[in-house]
């Protein structure tokens, strides 16, 4: 839509310019600003597909395996140490998932992986009823349950407690049935991360072994999904816009409310583990990964920044800075007293910092929508 609007705007400006030129005979020949640019996208798309997206899903799947192991250890040897290890493993596997939210397209959407892994809010009533009525749990059984009693947040609730007073749970507070449920949920979780990875690298249709891997659809365009590289780049930019919008206007702004009397802690994601700010930061780090073309700390590779740079070098730097500003603004919410997000929304000083983070995200979103996405129309492939 935005793309269409810009095309229309360009067409109208061209028309106006022509009309002006025609009406006054002594006017100078209008200077047409040459905005077209060329950029060879193959290397960037290959890099983003293999080294950012697929590598991210590989990390997610490896993290899921480590987490499953940690929960199994906890079932076998229920100690505080093993509980702490499982809690850390949960936080670790959360990172590639949240970062991967900057590109929620393809199999993660088509195979409904997102709701299976990350349904929020959690249905605590049903979860507690299950724990009160069942004698044991198996992964096969758990897989048939509704999504709101499995996935990240179910496991989070079991590992960290209700998060109202603290985000710590000792092994004495965890029942055998809870750890069994946790382990079964981790097993189901692992099957979904595996399907997601397989869909990207083996066959995008789990029912058809001969279907192409989803990554090949991006790498070799001219297929049903991506007619050209333009479609791939557009998908990647829209993916980043999607998560910036979700973090700023959804994850942060919804519980934040219009004023301190209007907050809603029930909407805070990852409130049991107090991991919300890490989630939000990772979401925008995911944007940074796609924009820069590499994970933080890795050697420089081609990313969307190189595409933007070919069109407008100042813009490329400005957006990169805005991404860093947004990450910094989210991290700053915790303040000196290290407030978790669910407490920060109820703190007058922290609310000022939260508003700053929302504003930073809003600026970033505007830049992507108005300045980056519109560059697609000037791209001479």
């Amino acid at each position, binding site marked *: 839509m935005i793309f269409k609007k810009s095309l229309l705007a360009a067409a109208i400006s061209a028309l106006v310019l022509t009309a002006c030129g025609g009406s006054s005979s002594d006017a100078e020949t209008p200077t047409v600003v040459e905005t077209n640019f060329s950029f060879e996208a193959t290397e960037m798309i290959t890099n983003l597909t293999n080294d950012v997206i697929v590598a991210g899903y590989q990390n997610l799947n490896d993290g899921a395996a480590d987490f499953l192991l940690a929960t199994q250890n906890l079932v076998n040897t229920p100690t505080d140490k093993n509980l702490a290890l499982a809690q850390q493993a949960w936080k670790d596997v959360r990172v590639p998932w949240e970062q991967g939210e900057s590109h929620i397209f393809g199999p993660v959407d088509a195979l*409904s992986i997102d709701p299976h892994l990350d349904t929020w809010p959690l*249905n605590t*009533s049903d979860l507690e009823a299950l724990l009160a009525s069942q004698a044991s749990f198996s992964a096969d059984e758990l897989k048939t349950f*509704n999504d709101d009693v499995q996935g990240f947040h179910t496991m989070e609730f079991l590992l960290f407690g209700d998060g109202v007073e603290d985000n710590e749970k000792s092994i004495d507070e965890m029942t055998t049935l809870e750890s069994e449920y946790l382990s079964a949920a981790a097993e189901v979780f692992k099957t979904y991360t595996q399907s997601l990875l397989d869909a990207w690298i083996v066959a995008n249709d789990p029912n058809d072994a001969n279907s192409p891997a989803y990554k090949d659809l991006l790498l070799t365009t001219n297929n049903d999904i991506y007619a050209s590289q333009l479609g791939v780049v557009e998908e990647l930019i829209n993916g980043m816009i999607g998560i910036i919008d979700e973090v700023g206007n959804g994850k942060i702004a919804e519980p934040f409310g219009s004023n301190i009397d209007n907050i809603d802690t029930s909407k805070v994601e990852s409130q049991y583990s107090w991991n919300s700010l890490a989630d939000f930061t990772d979401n925008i780090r995911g944007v940074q990964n796609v924009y820069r073309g590499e994970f933080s700390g890795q050697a420089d590779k081609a990313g969307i920044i190189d595409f933007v740079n070919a069109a407008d070098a100042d813009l490329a730097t400005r957006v990169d800075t805005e991404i860093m500003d947004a990450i910094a603004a989210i991290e700053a919410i915790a303040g000196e007293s290290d407030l978790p997000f669910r407490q920060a929304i109820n703190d007058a000083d922290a609310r000022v910092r939260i508003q700053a983070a929302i504003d930073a995200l809003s600026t970033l979103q505007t830049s992507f929508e108005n300045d980056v996405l519109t560059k697609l129309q000037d791209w001479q492939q």
Partner: protein
Amino acid sequence: MKRLFVSILVYGLCSFNNQSVAATQSELELALEKQQQQLALIEKQLATLKADSLKASENKQLNTGQDFDVKKNWQINSYGSVLYKSEDVYQNIQDTNPERRATTDLERVVLEFVYDFDPKWQVEIELEYEHGGTGSTLEYDGFEEFGEFETEVEAGGEIIVEKMQAQYIANKYFTMKMGHIFVPVGLGTDLHKPTQYVSTQRYWSEATLIPQVWHETGVNLISKWNGFTAQTLITTGLNSEFFRTYNWIATGHQRRFETVNADDLAFTLRLDYGDIKVGKGIGVSFYTGDTSGNRNNDTKVDGDGNLTIIGLHGAYSYENWLVRGQYLFGSLDDSEAITNANKTTPGLKPGNFSQLGSEAESAFVELSYNSQDLFNVSKPLYLYTIYEYANPIKKVEQGLATDRFNTQSIALGMNYYPIKNIVLKTQAAQTKHAQSNLDDSTSFSLSMGYFFSI
């Protein structure tokens, strides 16, 4: 009838006159006066008779929602309703503190065309505009990726054809309906016009389990004998891809699709004694059909997904009182396999609501009273109370059946007919949730409904 009566009378008077040719003037005057008195008496009796018959026909119309005095081979009927409702609503599944919201809904405007070709053949079409008439249909595109469910927004402004049937009346014992017909499971289909149900909205308990006003393509053979009516139907079945936790098999109604998959057919049997619509009848219904074959993506489920529904219903009226009730029980085979398939079918997106009840049930009982005579008002004024219960996920094959959708309600209300074609309704209701951390919630609603026939 009046004309016939008068002509007989005039004929009688004339013959009386002929016989008294030889009578004297005074005798004649006396006889004439006597005849005039008799005439006045008869006219008075006629007037009473006419008023009685009018009242009877009006009452009948109220009960059945039909105008019977139309003597022509075509008929256009229309009915519709609009609703205002203020109720407690929950934001999401975890939310246990409801928020008060008020809504209005132009529920439906329906046009019904009936044409009698001859005494044996008739065609009936019912067109419905729901919620002001916007919508979309779904199309399954098997050539896209691994099959895609596509929303056809071009169909926006959709009109639902609820009924398109041809009826053949063989004799007074046998009638056959064919085309797009109603499936007579649940009283909601019998009592779907605003003048036929007393509550502001149609029975929610029924809608929680089965398609409300269920219509499918097929054939219905109706046999009548000594007050008994048996209906035997073969129709298109449901599609289990769209079964959901919160209303069981109701959303499996394939009306969302451009074309209806008919690989699995359903069999319905209904037996009634008396007539539910006029308030004196009792009956049972039985529905059975497979649901896996109608899936677009039909390789995902092992098993037929056989669905069985049993319904008991009855209505009894005495003087100004009317009591009606229904119990529905359903069971679904392979509910675990369907749950898993719905959860993992690409593009299907059942969200969080894929788990299905292997058993479900619902019931209602309503009592209404026409207080017209009690309060000495000139127009019908019905007072009513309704108890409703539904649990679309009573039992599951695996794990625990969530109690979130196990609810009961008690409603109290009033229907007022300013004229026989318009009904104004008001209702207050309280809903009880089986889930222990949910408090009772309340609702208040107003409704206006109309019905006419030309």
